[in-house]
């Protein structure tokens, strides 16, 4: 799937969107959006009055009618654009799924070829090297390398094997080596990709709770303006002013919140779309909203806060030993150690000028692997035994006593959150290697910004409390959970929720599933088990736990955009009143002219300018709705102050300028 954002002005999206704008005029579908429905009814009424020859000023009424239709079309266009962008994403996703066949294992043991979309939950398929995996499932036999770049964009193949936490496979990915048996875990149309496609396409799109609440408010405002117009008509009659229906409809449409009404669904779709661009699949729009509300993040230490595994960072030689000697011995003791720690020791030794030794050069060497009993590893070479291991193990190895200085080093490393490994020969303790978690750069800064936004970060780790505290301090997280077992994660999640927090977390293992389900936002890693994916409400295709942070930002951005445009839309009404009300009255009461503070040319030009502004602003705000208001990690008060200034005060002032400019323009070219 392409991870890049499309251009707003991509003709491949715009052209079909224009067509869709007209299709969406269907009042049955439009009725879901009360504000635009009222606008369409208004457009219809003015059109009917126009063609039946009511009213005196044909040219003026024609323009009013046209612009009312444009208002509806522009709103439809915004939605169609958002859907179009979603569809483009979906198309890319779908491309990976077409014409896939699976080899279904029949009960009698034979294999039949079957189209992927005919596979059912529970079917077992056999996939060999070079074949596409036909559907989401779980490896039940064998292990294989799988190319998941079609989904994640990550070119390095990953290993998928039965049992454990790396058994889940996704439909559309390619097996590179070996043969695996897969049990299909979802029916076609229910897989994550299908789910996602439906979500962006609008077929199964449902309004989120906040969207529903907002729609209720917008409908209430629409009703209020409707009754305000009716009372205006009544007061007009009582004051011997005859307000014509097209003018009243024009005023009504200008006042009802068409801007947010027209852009609301586009904002929602765009939010999901932005997640997809980050390679995160959300199971519902609701979970994106919840992401904005989250105020506690559970971050797994490994992979999120620290880079992979612990690494050797320093050699601390014993008295009378040089660093080079220690490095040399450490390298020898680690040559056969294929663990990341072991490799990092070899890498560190290079820095001390110790040349890399190749195992093949040393035929007489005997490797001593790590065992749970000895808790050491090393080599026996030329009559010397090199060993490295935990301090306790080495102490026993050298006869129960280590030099004072080494004991001190060991303690110092431990208390700073590192892991000490002691290197020794049978005769002599050579020194200590410091293994440390490497905290990713820039995190402390990021967590600091989260703190300003009122979001607390909690590091989850299996380390002992001492190590955990040191890493937590270095990374700048607010809190940590040490020696964490999966059930502790669930308990902590419950505890946080009990006191009113909303929790987001990531997880991949089956034993993470309960906590993922409990969390308000549970992001399952795509490499994780099926159980984890089903428990969470988002799936990260890149399996990158750091992304939790970006998910929260996208959620907040979605909500801010929605709030900003709502405020803007309502604030706009002030200027529209100043444009239209004096224009409606000045014919009968010329004394009201000073209320025309924008000095609009004529009553017709004033009304028309307001209607045009009202329509055009929808188009003008489509890019903002699709891209979202820029998110700044600040405290609520600062964000609110800033947005109130831009969208509240700006929303009051901008239409004064806009309507005046449109008035100048249309009077110059003679439209009114």
């Amino acid at each position, binding site marked *: 799937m392409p991870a890049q954002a499309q251009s707003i002005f991509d003709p491949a999206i715009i052209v079909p969107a224009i067509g869709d704008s007209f299709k969406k005029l269907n009042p049955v579908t439009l009725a879901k959006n009360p504000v635009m429905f009222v606008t369409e009814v208004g457009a219809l009424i003015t059109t009917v009055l126009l063609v039946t020859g009511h009213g005196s000023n044909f040219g003026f009424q024609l323009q009013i009618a046209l612009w009312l239709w444009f208002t509806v079309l522009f709103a439809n266009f915004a939605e169609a654009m958002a859907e179009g962008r979603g569809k483009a994403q979906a198309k890319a996703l779908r491309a990976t799924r077409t014409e896939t066949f699976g080899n279904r294992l029949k009960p009698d043991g034979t294999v039949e070829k079957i189209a992927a979309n005919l596979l059912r939950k529970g079917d077992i398929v056999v996939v060999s090297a070079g074949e596409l995996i036909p559907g989401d499932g779980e490896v039940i036999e064998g292990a294989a390398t799988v190319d998941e770049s079609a989904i994640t964009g990550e070119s390095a193949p990953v290993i998928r094997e039965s049992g454990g936490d790396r058994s889940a496979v996704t439909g559309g990915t390619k097996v590179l080596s070996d043969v695996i048996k897969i049990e299909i875990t979802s029916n076609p149309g229910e897989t994550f990709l299908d789910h996602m496609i439906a979500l962006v396409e609008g077929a199964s799109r449902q309004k989120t*709770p*906040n969207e*529903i*609440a*907002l729609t*209720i*408010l917008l*409908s*209430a*405002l629409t009703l*209020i*303006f409707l*009754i*305000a117009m*009716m*009372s*205006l*008509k*009544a*007061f*007009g*009659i*009582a*004051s011997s*002013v005859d307000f014509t229906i097209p003018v009243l409809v024009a005023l009504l449409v200008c006042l009802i919140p068409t801007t947010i009404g027209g852009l609301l669904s586009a904002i929602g779709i765009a939010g999901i779309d932005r997640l997809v661009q980050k390679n995160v699949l959300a199971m519902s729009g609701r979970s994106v909203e919840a992401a*904005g*509300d989250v*105020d506690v993040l559970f971050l797994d230490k490994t992979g999120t806060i620290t880079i992979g595994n612990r690494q050797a960072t320093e050699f601390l030689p014993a008295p009378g030993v040089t660093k080079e000697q220690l490095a040399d011995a450490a390298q020898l003791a680690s040559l056969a150690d294929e663990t990341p720690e072991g490799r990092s020791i070899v890498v560190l030794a290079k820095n001390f000028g110790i040349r890399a030794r190749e195992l093949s050069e040393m035929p007489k060497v005997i490797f001593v692997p790590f065992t749970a009993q000895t808790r050491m590893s090393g080599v026996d070479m030329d009559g010397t035994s090199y060993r490295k291991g935990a301090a306790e193990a080495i102490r026993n190895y050298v006869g129960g006593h280590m030099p004072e200085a080494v004991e001190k080093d060991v303690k110092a490393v431990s208390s700073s959150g590192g892991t000490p490994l002691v290197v020794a020969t049978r005769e002599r303790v050579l020194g200590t290697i410091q293994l440390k978690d490497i905290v990713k750069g820039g995190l402390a800064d990021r967590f600091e910004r989260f*703190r300003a*936004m009122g*979001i*607390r970060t909690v590091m989850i780790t299996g380390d002992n409390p001492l190590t955990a505290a040191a890493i937590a301090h270095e990374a700048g997280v607010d809190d940590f959970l040490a020696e964490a077992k999966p059930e502790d994660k669930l308990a902590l999640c419950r505890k946080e929720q009990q006191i*009113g*927090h909303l929790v987001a977390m990531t997880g991949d293992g089956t034993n993470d599933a309960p906590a993922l389900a409990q969390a308000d936002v549970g992001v399952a890693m795509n490499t994780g088990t099926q159980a984890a994916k089903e428990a969470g409400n988002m799936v990260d295709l890149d399996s990158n736990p750091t992304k939790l942070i970006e998910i929260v930002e996208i*959620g*907040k*951005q979605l*909500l801010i955009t929605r*709030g900003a445009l709502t*405020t803007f839309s*309502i604030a706009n009404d*002030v200027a529209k*009143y100043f444009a239209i*009300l004096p224009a409606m*009255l000045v014919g009968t*009461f010329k*004394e*009201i002219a*000073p*209320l025309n503070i924008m000095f609009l040319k004529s009553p017709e030009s004033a009304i028309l300018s307001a209607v045009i502004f009202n329509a055009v602003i929808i188009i003008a705000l489509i890019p903002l709705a699709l891209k979202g208001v820029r*998110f700044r990690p600040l*405290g*609520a008060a600062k*964000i*609110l*102050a800033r*947005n*109130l200034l831009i*969208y*509240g005060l700006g929303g009051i002032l901008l239409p004064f300028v806009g309507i005046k400019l449109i008035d100048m323009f249309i009077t110059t070219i003679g439209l009114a």
Partner: protein
Amino acid sequence: MNTSGWLQLALYIVVLLLITKPLGIYLFRVLDANGKTFLDPVVKPVELLTYRIFGVDPEKEQGWILYTMAMLIFELVTVLFTYLVLRFQNFLPLNPQGMAGVTDHLAFNTAWSFATNTNWQSYGGESTMSYLSQMLALASHNFFSAAIGIAIAAAVVRGIVRHSTKTLGNFWVDLVRINYYLLLPISIVYAVFLVAQGVPQNFKPYDTAKVVEVQTVQVPKKDDAGNPVKDAKGNAVMVDQKVDSQSIVEGPIASQMAIKMLGTNGGGYTNANAAHPFENPTPLSNFIQMLSIFAIPSALTYYLGRMVKNQGHGWSVWAAMAIVFVAGVLVCWGAEAAGNPIMNHVGVDRAGGNMEGKEVRFGIFNSALFATITTDASCGAVNSMHDSFTPLGGFVPLFNIQMGEIIFGGVGSGLYGMILFIVLAVFIAGLMVGRTPEYLGKKIESYDVKVASIAILLMAFSILGFAGWAALTPWGQAGENNSGPHGLSEIFYAYSSCTGNNGSAFAGLTANPTNNDPHYDITLAFATIIGRFGMIIPVMALAGSLGRKKLIATGAGTFPVTGGLFVTLLIGTILLVGALTFLPALTLTPILEHFLMLNGKLF
């Protein structure tokens, strides 16, 4: 706009600020069913006895539906009682003036008007009501309706504070405690103070005094049956009448005045209301009456802060109210002080501004201040005639009412109305902090928005719907005392006032005409009912919903409900919602009238 006015305004605000905290703390104790007050030794036994007599279990709390139902039943019973007393006052004692029974539609209108804390009066008190009616049928509602307002506000605040619970308190306990510990004790002291200022308090029949200067007026001639005599053309035949004596009103006035102000009821004993020297005799009584209108509503903001354990929030709400209040005073005062340009132009001594319809005793500033206070609150008592204000001066009381009377507002109703606007403000702007909206740890969800919207919709529908209807009908237009936009303003004001449960009037309007047309009485009564219960029921539903919710932890990412930003936002929301709803109609009424006046047209 003179120095003495500025000083008095400053004095008023400072004194109001000073009483807010102590009265707020006292409210906090009264509204807690187990709260201790200094009156306990005297009142507690009576309170417990009352529960025993009526079989109330004070420990048993009610959910929002039961609480509201209890209130509605209480209202129905007391309204029926008042209706009957008014209808049959001629058969009842304490009627030294021999007042006739009140007509059916006027009794209907009056009973609901007092029960809903509106106190719209389509009658002149001194020429319609017996002493018994004033004391028993009307004053009782002054206590009840005030207590109900405060009780509802307390229930709503409990809904905000509590979480994961269904109950909001016990209506009967709240009703009893508010009356026994708050309204009655203050009213007794207050009434004694008013007597000291010269307000009558007796059961004497009206006095008759000889006038110093005998005058002759023309009155319609009546035949023996009391019907007006008409000439051949159908015009009334007028005859001269010599006026050499004056009837002077007496009765239990002071006791009525105290609760009328304290409970933001506003129904006058006399037709002239607080402009009458017997209702409001001295500058001090005028100051104290204005203060007592805002006293409880102001203290309730402190109560809110105390209850939600965020005193800053309470003061922020207070500040938002105070700012809009002062703005209203300044516009009204400014408009009245500037006076009428046409009069100024022809060289009439404008006596420092527009003095039409004002008591010389109070002058322009105190009239403008009183008018702003009485309409910010849902009081409706007047010490000047709002109908005679300049267009902009009259715009202020009208718009105050239309904003929902939440600028301190009626006792209780001001606070719960304000909470409705806070919920709206938080909902609209709350998203902009990047979280779904929440208020004091409660998520504002679709149900909450729905009930809040219903309340605001009903207010708009009642005001604009009734006013629009009346403006188009013969019965509506017949009530107008003036032509043009001013006549329309009178209708607009009447329905705004009744829907807002204010009760003041652009009193040129004849709502209870001599031909006994019941349209105004009935429609205005329905406006009071919609305005009261169309607000209370949704607000209680909101309280119930908030009380059931889980509490969300608050932090740096939470929408701020204290400080200048919140105050600005709240004021902006109130003004915007009010303006957007009513500006079209207002443009054809005071605003048009203002521009016409500037061009030399008066109505």
